[in-house]
């Protein structure tokens, strides 16, 4: 038990001791859990939280139990460390089938990942809390992810960052000290490696071998002024403020899908709190005259017709352009203009607000405010666990968005082909059946062997059951996000009933699902809340694939080409059938319609295939070859390219709908109010698991 604090034994110890025992008993009854990696994953892994009588917390501040449901990849373990550190004591960890959770302290109770494990774990946890909530022997929790590291940067060239003091290679100035999170640098290093997590980079930068952290002071208005001592700014005379760099902002660039109005790195806090300025990724083009014009491909500027130039080149021009494009007047120290020119009549040291705001990007209403970058994830309630969503907020509207998967989706080479299906299914807790099917099909294709025909319908039924379960899981998350607690509870219960149901059970659940659909469609104000939110139309929608595309009226569905489905009489449901547009409401209606359709397909198939291993399906597994398979997962088409060598996987490339959907977030949420933007993101049903290359 990770106790509250060393009990102070003293005059009051008797009274406080009695109180403490009472409080500890109360705490044991009042367990409130923060879910890692998320409610959706917990549900998909078969945990019925309502049945267990466990309250859930929206924020680590509210929780006293950190519930780790299933194994976590290293990047999420780091995030879990942050959440754990922010939970007030007394606090406890309940690990369900989590295995090694190293930077976190050892679990107070560990059980296997099942409903009975949860129940047993909770009972054990209650006893542990009642007995040990105020245990005197306590150690501080620290983890590499929490460490603060000192780095050295050039006041004039913030992109110059070094571990050691020295002078700037660009201008020769002495580098100055600054505080940064240890994760930052690791991420930078990792960004160049394939699949490099932030964690790998920690080695060498842990708190133990870093120099003792010391504070750095900077002027809020002139970020280029950095000092290691408190004092006043030489430019404007303001008191310098203590600063620390943000943690995750640069740690996760690998695999990030960056979208939005301009470069997200532009929008660090006021006064440019973080000034790593890595060059823009190659392949981004911008207009030399209109830096706000950014394009993925070369072409001409829509505003002036000039030929677009690669961005780094444009960025090097001058501070003026640079700062403007970076969109942060606080960063004016980047080069362009220092303090205001001396104007007669203005007292010395008077700081010009005009100068401060001049280079800020303007909102649609013409006001230039400061933008802040706010993380919404990886453990944000109502969003998929493992999704790293960062909004750049202009007030409460979204100016730019960045979504990335924090979950590695790598299949290590050298995996025996027989284990592929299991491994892939384990990697995607939100849609294991679909990934398993994908693996089986890829192996079958590699073997050139057709699956036994009698399996087709049953396997399709298994996929459809997974689809219903996935849609229900999504609906539960959406209900939570918009505050429909009763609906969430009802949907979660149905999800649990259906998750492992056989065909007969499915038929029994069908009326309840139909009633649910009617209830959801008939919920007052729900349509009002969702309609017009997160509109995706036209080509963008068609590219997104899956229910998002179908909701917008594109009849794209990989199942249409599948003979097994053809045999079941499958017909694509698209937006025109449900009669709605490509907004969040349309997606909800689309998914409800797909649930009905899937039930129908299961009924026609008559049986649901058990979780199949590729070994069961194929007489012998192929040892060499290259193959590709494509399956319509609940979120859209996924493809798997497989290269086999000597019975092991030499290369496996999985393409999930995540990247395509995440690319929509930026344009979709531009200038939306925060709550609406979050609903829009939730309505896409992102599955970050297995998405990172």
């Amino acid at each position, binding site marked *: 038990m990770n106790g509250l604090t060393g009990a102070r034994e003293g005059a009051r110890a008797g009274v406080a001791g009695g109180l403490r025992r009472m409080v500890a008993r109360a705490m044991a009854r009042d367990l409130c859990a923060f879910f890692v990696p998320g409610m959706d994953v917990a549900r998909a892994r078969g945990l019925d939280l309502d049945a267990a009588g466990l309250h859930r917390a929206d924020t680590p501040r509210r929780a006293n139990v950190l519930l780790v449901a299933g194994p976590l990849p290293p990047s999420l373990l780091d995030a879990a460390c942050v959440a754990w550190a922010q939970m007030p004591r007394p606090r406890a960890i309940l690990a369900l089938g989590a295995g090694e959770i190293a930077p976190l302290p050892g679990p107070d109770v560990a059980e296997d990942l099942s409903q009975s494990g949860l129940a047993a774990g909770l009972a054990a946890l209650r006893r542990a809390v009642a007995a040990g909530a105020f245990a005197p022997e306590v150690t501080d929790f620290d983890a590499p992810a929490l460490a603060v590291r000192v780095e050295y940067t050039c006041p004039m060239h913030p992109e110059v960052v070094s571990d050691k003091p020295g002078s700037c290679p660009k201008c020769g100035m002495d580098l100055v000290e600054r505080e940064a999170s240890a994760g930052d640098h690791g991420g930078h290093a990792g960004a160049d490696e394939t699949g490099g997590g932030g964690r790998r980079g920690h080695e060498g930068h842990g708190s133990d071998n870093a120099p003792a952290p010391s504070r750095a002071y900077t002027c809020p208005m002139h970020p280029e002024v950095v000092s290691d001592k408190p004092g006043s700014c030489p430019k404007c005379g303001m008191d310098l403020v203590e600063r620390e760099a943000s943690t995750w902002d640069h740690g996760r660039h690998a695999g990030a899908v960056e979208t939005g109005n301009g470069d997200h790195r532009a929008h660090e806090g006021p006064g440019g709190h973080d000034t790593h300025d890595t060059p823009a990724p190659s392949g981004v083009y911008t207009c030399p005259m209109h830096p706000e014009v950014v394009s993925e491909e070369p072409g001409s500027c829509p505003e002036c017709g000039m030929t677009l130039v690669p961005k780094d080149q444009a960025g090097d021009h001058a501070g003026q352009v640079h700062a403007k494009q970076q969109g942060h007047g606080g960063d004016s120290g980047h080069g362009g203009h220092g303090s205001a020119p001396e*104007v007669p*009549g*203005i*007292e010395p040291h*008077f700081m*010009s*607000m*005009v100068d*401060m*705001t*001049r280079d*800020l990007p303007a909102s649609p*209403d*013409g*006001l*230039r405010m400061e933008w802040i970058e706010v993380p919404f994830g990886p453990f944000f309630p109502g969003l998929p666990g493992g999704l790293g969503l960062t909004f750049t907020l202009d007030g409460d509207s979204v100016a730019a968005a960045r979504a990335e998967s924090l979950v590695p989706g790598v299949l290590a080479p050298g995996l025996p082909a027989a284990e592929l299906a299991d491994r892939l299914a384990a990697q995607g807790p939100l849609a294991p059946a679909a990934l398993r099917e994908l693996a089986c099909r890829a192996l079958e294709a590699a073997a050139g062997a057709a699956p036994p025909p009698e399996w087709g319908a049953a396997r399709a039924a298994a996929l459809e059951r997974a689809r219903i379960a996935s849609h229900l899981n999504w609906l539960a998350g959406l209900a939570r996000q918009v505050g429909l607690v009763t609906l969430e509870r009802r949907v979660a219960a149905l999800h649990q009933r259906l998750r492992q149901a056989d065909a007969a059970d499915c038929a029994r659940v069908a009326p309840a699902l139909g009633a649910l659909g009617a209830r959801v469609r008939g919920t007052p104000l729900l349509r009002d809340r969702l309609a017009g939110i997160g509109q995706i139309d036209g080509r963008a929608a068609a590219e997104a694939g899956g229910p998002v595309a179908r909701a917008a009226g594109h009849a794209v569905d990989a199942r249409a080409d599948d003979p097994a489905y053809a045999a079941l009489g499958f017909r694509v449901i698209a937006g025109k059938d449900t009669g709605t547009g490509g907004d969040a409401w349309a997606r909800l209606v689309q998914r409800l319609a797909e649930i009905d359709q899937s039930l129908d397909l299961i009924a026609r198939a008559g049986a649901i295939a058990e979780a199949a291993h590729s070994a069961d399906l194929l007489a012998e597994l192929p040892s060499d070859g290259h193959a590709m398979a494509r399956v319509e997962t609940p979120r859209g088409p996924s493809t798997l390219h497989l290269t086999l060598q000597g019975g092991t996987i030499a290369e496996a490339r999985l393409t999930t709908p995540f990247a395509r959907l995440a690319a929509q977030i930026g344009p979709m949420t531009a200038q939306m109010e925060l709550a609406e933007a979050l609903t829009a993101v939730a309505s896409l049903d992102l599955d970050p698991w297995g998405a990172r290359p």
Partner: protein
Amino acid sequence: MIPELMIALSIGAALFGIGLYGALSQTNLVMIIMGVELVLSAALLNMVAFWRYLHPDVTAAKMYVLIVMAVMAVEMTVGFGIAVARFRSRGSVEMEEARELKG
């Protein structure tokens, strides 16, 4: 000599002084409005004090209080409206810059 009246009026005077100082010394339009608000609240205080200790039977005095309150609200409305407009066009509501950067 009515001590309560004196106390109330003195406090009104103090608020007036503070408000005047604020309105003159601040560089920012919004802060200037705050100074003016203080001056007006001093006026309110004086009116109520006079009403209470000299003429509690004259209801018109309270009518003036209501009007002054309305003036405060109106002043804030218009002031903030102008602040929004200035900020939109110039990116600043600093009065120093209003003087120097006209046009």
